[in-house]
């Protein structure tokens, strides 16, 4: 499907949705659609937060509630116009989310979820116990939203407030996800360490997502208060929060449109079950909850990846668009330091894990324009050294200095910002993104625009520049042909090369490669060595951890040999080959003698 036809289809779909109330559809169905829209607003945020970002939140209903109570209180008590309270609601909810997020987002994982539960339950009970909020009866008499003389009192008119809001939320969210910040969000889930090595401030990105989801919830809460015209605590209980999460999961928590599918499924099931069951069994009571629960389990069994992925397969919808390469020039390439000057200085670093000394008083230097190999038998402390340099681990003693700037004790993102790019021993790519997008993640630091500009699509020029940079790195390594492939579909050799391309997209002054040749075939190793030599010609400094001696000896300028965390030799490859200590370490006492 071409872009033009796709836009036409989307426009047609929007128009069809907006025409629905004009057709002879019963009001009860329109009401249902309004509730679907209200739920979808919250769920879209949750899809990004939980499905994409990997942060499970049970408290979205509390954010909806904060907003609903804010507008209800302000409009009934002080007679403010609802249009005036909308920004206030968004602000209040956003600030709450920021405060809660600042304290809990660093936890991540289970702690984050529990914090949202605790906070969600507290807010719910607070609504019911504060006198000014009308205790359990809530606040009644909330005014309708009005434009000029027209009041959005009826369901059919309210529909036109809710669904455009849903459309805007979807548009903003999809713009956000396909931007520079969005790529960082998509890397959060499972690949946070990689994101940090690309210079992404993961804390900040997590907070952004948290606040964004809360603000979407606040819009829903504002609409909800003025639709129901009354707010009571029960609408914002923990169960409601769980229900939003359920919508996201049932719909397919990895897809934005899954939010629509999930909201529709849950709201319709909830709304219709009672009537259907009463008709079938003539029962009275609260039995629809049994059927609802059973149906939910059945849906999860039938479609563990969510309804949306089933819909997509069934309707043969095209896969989401993959961004194209770009030829935009690089406006500000970093100047490489002069050949031969010291770039990286390791000075007496020591690292213990428990009682085990992994790196012991290690010192060496890396000079500009050289390839330095760091070798040693298994358990020699190579990877630990590597992680200390890149900021992932802190040394107990000693320091790491990079171009006159102390790196030790800082963070991986700081090292990345200073121009230290790295690859990982087990190739790490974000599986849900294309090769090009993965490489563009490496160029994260080259952009400046934040989430807000991304949502408004004010980042087009910058995105072109980033993708231009990424495209060039792929060309540089001869990977243009696999640019649009999914990262999950790559062979190990390809994945390692893509990792190097991503590191190069950082425009590094020092390239650190962790066993780049491991698992490669002989031919691939030679090709890799050729490419690394070419990079050296271009003035890039490389620090290499490797096992394969054949690969190393013909490639590196100098070698540093570690054994049991201590440096046992340093020098030219030919000297190292003759070194007795090295021979003993690698081949044993008898041969060394």
């Amino acid at each position, binding site marked *: 499907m071409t872009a033009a036809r796709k836009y036409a289809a989307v426009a047609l779909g929007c128009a069809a949705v907006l025409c629905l109330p004009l057709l002879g559809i019963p009001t009860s169905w329109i009401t249902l659609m309004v509730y679907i829209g209200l739920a979808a607003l919250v769920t879209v945020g949750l899809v990004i937060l*939980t499905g994409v970002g990997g942060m*499970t939140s049970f408290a979205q209903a509390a954010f909806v509630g904060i907003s609903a109570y804010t507008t209800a209180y302000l409009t009934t008590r002080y007679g403010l116009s609802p249009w005036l309270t909308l920004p206030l609601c968004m602000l209040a909810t956003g600030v709450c989310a920021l405060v809660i997020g600042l*304290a*809990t987002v*660093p*936890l991540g994982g*289970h*702690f984050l*979820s*529990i*914090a949202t*539960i*605790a*906070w969600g*339950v*507290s807010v719910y*009970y*607070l609504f019911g*116990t504060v006198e000014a909020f009308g205790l359990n009866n809530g606040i009644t008499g909330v005014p309708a939203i009005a434009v000029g003389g027209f009041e959005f009192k009826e369901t059919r008119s309210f529909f036109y407030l809710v669904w455009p809001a849903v459309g805007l939320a979807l548009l903003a969210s999809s713009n956000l996800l396909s931007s520079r910040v969005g790529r960082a969000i998509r890397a959060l889930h499972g690949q946070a360490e990689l994101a940090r090595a690309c210079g992404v401030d993961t804390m900040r990105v997590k907070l952004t997502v948290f606040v964004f989801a809360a603000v979407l919830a606040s819009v829903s809460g504002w609409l909800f208060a003025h639709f129901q015209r009354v707010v009571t605590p029960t609408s914002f209980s*923990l*169960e409601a929060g*769980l229900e939003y*999460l*359920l919508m996201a*999961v*049932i719909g397919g*928590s990895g897809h934005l449109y899954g939010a629509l599918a999930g909201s529709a499924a849950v709201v319709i099931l909830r709304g219709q079950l009672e009537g259907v069951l009463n008709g079938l069994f003539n029962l009275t*009571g*609260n*039995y*629809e*909850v*049994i*059927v*609802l*629960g*059973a*149906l*939910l*389990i059945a849906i*999860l*069994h039938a479609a*563990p990846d969510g309804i949306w992925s089933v819909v997509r397969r069934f309707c043969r919808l095209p896969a989401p668009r993959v961004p194209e390469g770009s030829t935009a020039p690089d406006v500000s390439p970093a100047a490489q330091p002069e050949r031969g000057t010291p770039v990286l200085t390791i000075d007496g670093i020591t690292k213990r894990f428990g009682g085990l000394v992994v790196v012991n008083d290690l010192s060496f230097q890396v000079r500009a324009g050289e390839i330095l190999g760091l070798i040693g038998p298994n358990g020699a402390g190579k990877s630990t050294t590597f992680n200390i340099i890149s900021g992932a*681990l*802190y040394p107990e003693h000693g320091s790491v200095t990079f171009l006159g700037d102390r790196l030790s*004790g800082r963070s991986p993102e700081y090292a990345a910002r200073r121009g230290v790019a790295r690859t990982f021993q087990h190739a790490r790519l974000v599986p849900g993104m294309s090769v090009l997008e993965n490489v563009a993640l490496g160029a994260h630091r080259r952009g400046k625009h934040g989430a807000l500009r991304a949502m408004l699509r004010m980042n087009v020029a910058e995105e072109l520049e980033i993708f231009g940079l990424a495209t060039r790195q792929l060309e540089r390594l001869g990977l243009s042909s696999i640019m649009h492939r999914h990262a999950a579909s790559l062979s190990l050799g390809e994945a390692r090369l893509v990792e190097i391309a991503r590191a190069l997209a950082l425009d590094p002054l020092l390239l650190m490669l962790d066993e780049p040749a491991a698992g490669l075939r002989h031919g691939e190793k030679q090709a890799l060595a050729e490419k690394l030599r070419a990079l050296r010609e271009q003035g890039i400094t490389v620090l290499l951890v490797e096992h394969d001696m054949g690969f190393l000896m013909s490639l590196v300028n100098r070698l540093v040999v570690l054994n049991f965390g201590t440096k046992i030799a340093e020098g030219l490859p030919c000297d190292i080959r003759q070194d007795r200590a090295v021979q003993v370490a690698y081949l044993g006492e008898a041969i060394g003698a």
Partner: protein
Amino acid sequence: MDLTIFLALLQDGLVYGSIYAILAMAIILVFSVTRIVLFFGGELIVFSSLTMTALLSGSTPRILLLLGAICVLTAVHSVFRIRPLTVRGALVILARELGYPAAICVAGVVLAPLRMGPLACALLTLAIVIPLGPAIYRLAFRPIAQSSVLTLMMAAMGAHLVLTGAGLYVFGSDGVRTPAYLSGGVNLFGQAVPWQSILVVVVSLAILVGLWFFSTRTRQGKALRASAMNPRGARLMGISTDASGQAAFALAAAICAAAGILLAPLSTIYYDSGFIIGLKGFVAAIFGGLAYYPTALVVSIFVGLTEGFASFWASTFKEVIVFTLILPALFWISARALHSEEHA
């Protein structure tokens, strides 16, 4: 507040705290073996309390209907899983899966009107509630056992909804409270401590010790821990993860049933009281990282104590206070985690 009230609140907190503690153990056990968040532990506790109450008052507990329904569904489900499907095979499966529940149902119907003593009632309650655990596992979770934690969590939420709805149908909406199993008490530090409270704490401790003994000293317990630590490795060693899952659910159901029996005389229990109880156990379990029992134990006691004191000072804000106090504790953990990361 004088010393008497303080000690009374302390005692209350410890009693409730021990119940949350054993629930937290059940949650951690189930999560570490199956990655399922036991959202419905509270429901199992409440079912057990209400069953116990019904048995003590000499009426036949209608939970037998629920047990029967779930077991029939599970058996039918199992029948359709066998390949090739033969009449003989189907009959064997049905006999194997329905034999025990049928026996329990008969026992329940026959024994309930006899107005047995608390101990016999407790044993019958255990016998009724425990099979619910593995049955729920097979019905709701086994087919999606390999899914993400989030999907499993949502399935658990579905199970919670079903059980809550079924609870209303089975037990009705009236709250009940059982008279104490043990009367009288003992004087400790000038404070009258009823035997009932001591019973709760002692039984909880016994369960904790039993669980520790089971998981570190018995073959089955070690197999369960192996499944928890490394499912694939355990399978390669011949430990069925499916059997481990069912065992974990059976153990969890047993723990919850015991907690419910202990809880029955402590407060008025409704069919839907389980959610908030479950939540507090869940909080404690998460503080233990869903993995570390001692932390969960301490936090459970803390939650119980907070609840006790909060209900004295500001009873309407009780839940607000309990759940808000969790936040600073989380922040403290958060700060510590950041701090230790710096020195890692």
